[in-house]
């Protein structure tokens, strides 16, 4: 069992680490409103890939089963789940709950 707050914490922790690595203070101090991808975002495409790879690993460790965050359904949504921290958090909650049922 993992709550939305725990998932948000995972994301913010990973963004903090990435921000320190990439020297981007906006990522170190990320909030739910931080843009991840697209215009005015602080992550480039490889940064986003790194974040997703890290989060898949974190979730796998926490839950004990593997989670794949990028699939055709995620990529074809009108609003990309990777656009903002809160969107990503909600998407992860959805993925984890779907896998559970």
């Amino acid at each position, binding site marked *: 069992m993992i709550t939305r707050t725990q998932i948000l914490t995972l994301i913010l922790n990973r963004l903090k680490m990435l921000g320190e690595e990439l020297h981007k203070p906006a990522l170190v101090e990320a909030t739910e409103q931080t843009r991840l991808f697209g215009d005015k975002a602080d992550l480039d495409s490889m940064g986003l890939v790194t974040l997703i790879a890290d989060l898949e690993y974190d979730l*796998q460790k926490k839950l004990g089963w593997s989670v794949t965050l990028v699939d055709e359904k995620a990529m074809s949504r009108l609003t990309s789940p990777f656009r903002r921290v809160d969107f990503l958090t909600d998407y992860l909650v959805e993925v984890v709950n779907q896998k559970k049922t």
Partner: protein
Amino acid sequence: MPNAIITGTSRGLGRALAEKLLNEGWNVWGFSRKASLIKHARFTEQLLDVTDESAVQQAVNLMSNNAVTFDLLVNNAGAASMNALLLTPAKTAEALMRLNYLGSFHTLQAVGKLMVRQRRGLIINITTVAVPLALAGEAAYVATKAAVDALTKVAAQELQSQGITVIGLGFGPIETDLIKAVGKEKLALINQRIGRPDGTTLNQAVDFIFEHVDMKSITTGQLYYLGKIN
């Protein structure tokens, strides 16, 4: 001790490369459909089909659970089919594309994520001189390896910033089961064209791969051939 994943270790080049790395002190994880004859304390076998995305992902997840870091991935699993283009069954072309291209794609994607987290790693995709030579009679096979070459170049571009090097290593006919159906005259002709009239032994191919494992001497995105390609 460095750690490597090699696909297609049940026989041929994959098995010989696994044995070489084990002798050089590496830990080796082998992905293959059939059990290998390799018996070594540092060899771990994962019996799986590399065309099965979820099987590959599960195997890699198991490895990452054990907190092992991976230095090297060699995408070697593959098959060939020699036939005139107009007589090649579509099913053969499809099966080859699944194994040679999609197999490499799935493994690269799963292990690539591990390497992105590590911020380092070397990925070697095995390719063939048949692509630059555009060998007649090998259309289906050549197309799959051309796709692998394209994958190598794009993966190199995308992963370079994460400390990951991706190269292709290409060979002419190597003395393995893969070429047993090819006539001697045809083999001689290909070997002549690449400046290796005596052909390529399994040991020579393995040594060529091992030389390129030294990351300082290689450029990401490059395709290196054992033999002369004009």
